[in-house]
């Protein structure tokens, strides 16, 4: 069980427009309200499954091979905030678009926080293992089409109500699937960064000389 008690404001503000923007009272108030709404509507859930490597089904493309180098097994992981969050954002898009934008950004922060908690729980469950970071379908050349395989292997639709559309969008939308390498001995904790990111050409943060933190 994962519960969220608060959301990282700084992160949310960065999603909303970069660190240079000065905050004001209206934004603060809106964010307070959105945070309260999200925390009460979120039903964070996650699942994991340890698989032995090599696993042909999941190692498609060069980036994932590099990412799992030196690992004997891997943790498949998925997490979601639940369907109510999508509904909350949908309703706000009708009644108050500004609120919808803030809810959307803060929900993105929330799912990342859930994933970080899941990382911690995994590390606790396997104290003698070394982990690489979470790598998701859609990163670098890792095919988005693998969403379906991830969800099936984890039995995610049945266990946590997480599924994908025909075009591989996760539903509920504030959800993540990922794989993290595990090793008996220390591994180079592959650096994340712009190199593997599909948005590197269009990224607003990069244009503003910032970094999204990934």
């Amino acid at each position, binding site marked *: 069980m994962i519960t969220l008690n608060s959301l990282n404001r700084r992160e949310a503000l960065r999603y*909303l427009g970069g660190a240079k923007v000065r905050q004001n009272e*209206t*934004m603060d108030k*809106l964010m307070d309200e959105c945070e309260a709404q999200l925390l009460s509507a979120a039903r964070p859930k996650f699942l994991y499954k340890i698989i032995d490597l090599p696993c042909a089904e999941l190692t498609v493309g060069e980036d994932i091979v590099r990412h799992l180098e030196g690992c004997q097994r891997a943790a498949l992981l998925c997490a979601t905030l639940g369907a109510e969050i999508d*509904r909350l954002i949908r309703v706000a898009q*009708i009644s108050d678009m500004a*609120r*919808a*934008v803030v809810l959307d950004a803060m929900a993105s922060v929330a799912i990342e926080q859930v994933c970080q908690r899941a990382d911690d729980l995994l590390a606790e469950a396997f104290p003698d293992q070394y982990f690489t970071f979470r790598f998701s379908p859609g990163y670098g050349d890792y095919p988005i089409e693998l969403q379906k395989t991830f969800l099936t292997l984890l039995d995610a639709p049945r266990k946590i109500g997480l599924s994908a559309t025909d*075009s591989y969008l996760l539903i509920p939308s504030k959800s993540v699937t990922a794989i993290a390498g595990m090793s008996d001995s220390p591994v180079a904790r592959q650096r994340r960064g712009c190199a593997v990111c599909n948005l590197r050409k269009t990224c607003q943060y990069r244009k503003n000389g910032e970094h999204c933190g990934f």
Partner: protein
Amino acid sequence: MDFNTLLQKEFVLLDGAMGTLIQKSGAKYNHSPETLNITQPGLITSFHRAYIEAGADIVYANTFGANAYKLADSGYSVEEIIAAGIANAKKACEGISALVALDIGPIGMLLEPAGSLRFEEAYEYFKQQILAGQDADFIVFETMTDLYELKAAVLAAKENSSKPILATMTFERSGRTFTGVSPAAAATTLTGLGVNALGVNCSLGPDELEPVIAEMTQYTDLPLIVKANAGLPDPNSNEYDILPGRFAECVKALLPYGVKFIGGCCGTTPEYIAELKTMLANEAYQPCQKSADSSVCSASTVVEINGPRVIGERINPTGKKLFKQALADNNIDYILTQALSQVSGGAEILDVNVGHPEIDEKKMMVRVLKAIQSVCDAPLQIDSTKPDVLEAGLRCYNGKPIVNSVNGEEKSLSAVLPLVKKYGASVVGLTLDEGGIPKTAEGRFEIAKRIVARAEALGIDRRDVYIDCLTLTVSAEQDACRETLKALHRVKTELGCKTCLGVSNISFGLPNRELVNSTFLTMALEEGLDLPIINPNIDAMTGAVRAYRVLSGIDKNSLDFIASYNDAPAAQKPKAQENMTLDAAVYNGLKSEGATVTEQLLETVEPMVIVNEMLIPALDRVGEDFEKNKIFLPQLIQSANTAQECFDVIKKHLSKSGGDNVSKGKIIVATVKGDIHDIGKNIVKVLLDNYGYTVVDLGKDVDPQLIVDTAVEQNITMIGLSALMTTTLKSMEDTIRLVRQTPALQNPDGSSKCKIFVGGAVLTKEYAMKIGADFYCRDAKESVDTAKRVLG
């Protein structure tokens, strides 16, 4: 043995888990466990046999995931897997009087509105399975989490077979399914749809199911089904923690709630079924006694009509110019805004009427119902004079709706009531017939009696018939008011039906209508009115209902009343501050101030001067600051919304004085086929709207042909497309190609009339140009700049 014989038994014993036995046997399979039906039929038959020997009356064939979506890469067809699955189970039954169920689980894709699978497509998946499973004795739907998907399944079963149906859903510890369905809504809806038994399976152990079962039993007379997990699995060993003896003990505690069908789900084995059999030998079935009053529901919310409940009347184009325009423009958001504001005004049920000569009412009804259900939990009342529109609405409704309406005419009775029965709805019965509206209370009461008799003859419970004794205009016929109230009283006391009444007609032609309406409403409530159809946003009306509920002792300790009024701020139009300028109001996103300042300005300044010299420059200043990262996107939107308020004030002023239209041109926006992430498109829409453009929003997951057709029909030459995923960029390209190839959208020289702008997270300028777009817009602000360049 057939199903009815089975029902004679005290309890019906179902089987335990198939998956658990497959797992324990170590059997290897490619793709999915259902393929074992063909690769290892003997093994599957032996599992069924083990359950039958343990005492199961019914075995579920190994067909849970045998649908076209899940079997896509399996190398087998749905027909092959299902036929083999049923044959294996039948074989296990040889010489024993056990029955075989065609077992059907969720498709594996989420339905609209959360997902992209359409209700009608879901129906087709289930239909294929049901046709493939003709050899089974009955049909089971299980592990469902979406009531909408389950409704598609039940309809597919009813329309393509005559087999009995068992339906079970899976609930979380929170007491809801993943999609938010409540046990009460599930029981209400499924009972209406005419399944033979309903209940729960999977997810929880029997020790945790009591609250779910206790809630279901209040809303149905049908036998309940419990097929629980053997507790929780250990994440490492995958062993479940409730052993057979305790499992049977926990199930025993659920029997008083009307449970008749009992088996096991994940983690259970033949030993569990054997224990259940031993336990049940000394027990007696205790049928459900539905205790709830008349009720209707959405997928999440049941409204029990055990006191006056407000039906909101505003989703109806009659006499409403803006609403008609919204229908003609396909402006669904306008209708959704009305839905949300009525609910916040106090409506508990919403009437939905989209009848308008210029539109396809059937299509529009389906579209509007689906859209309202995606944002609003209130149950809906489907309102049309056309039976085909009613049926289309009933099919796509998620829950138990009200049909508005049937009347005493033979034509109406024979067309509408069968629909009400088939789709398990409630119905409003109007007390009029071929002879018109009877003048006397007796005449109307007689018609009410006839409607109730006809409904009951079809198997519709009279608790589901809400009689409307019809409000006539008091200024035309003063005595008629008394007749209406007399009829209402008799229907309530003598027929025992719930009553409903459209109220506002009473005051037509009189001054101070609100006063007449609210007084009449109070009189009608005292005579037994249950469902006033009113404008919930007029506080005198909703307030009369709230006050009545206090005074008649329905609202215990006045809790609802206090909650409604305690912290309500006194409605007060904000006064414009002395020094508030339009620029400041827009820049700071102060909506009501902006409107007030605009009103004041209109007294002295030309409307178009306000637009061009004040509003637009103010918006531009906000836009520039956004580009320079001085303000956040939500602030840009708040400013734009304020400008919208100001535009609205100006539009109203212009329509009064019959002046020019302020629209700066029409633009289509759409999120492309396959893509359902549309928040970016919606932001673009709000901004374009606020800058004075007329936006035709076609929504998300939009077929290229619809975009082309709309452009041609409405002669629109500017189109905005969004796509969020690399996988849906292809649809964007297809859409652009179709626009370019459509002769009606070409100039005489063959060049394209349309300017297309595109945006979305994964899109680049280069790619946008490559797929033939005219403009690439980095963000919503750039879309506005582009619109200015193209349309001015």
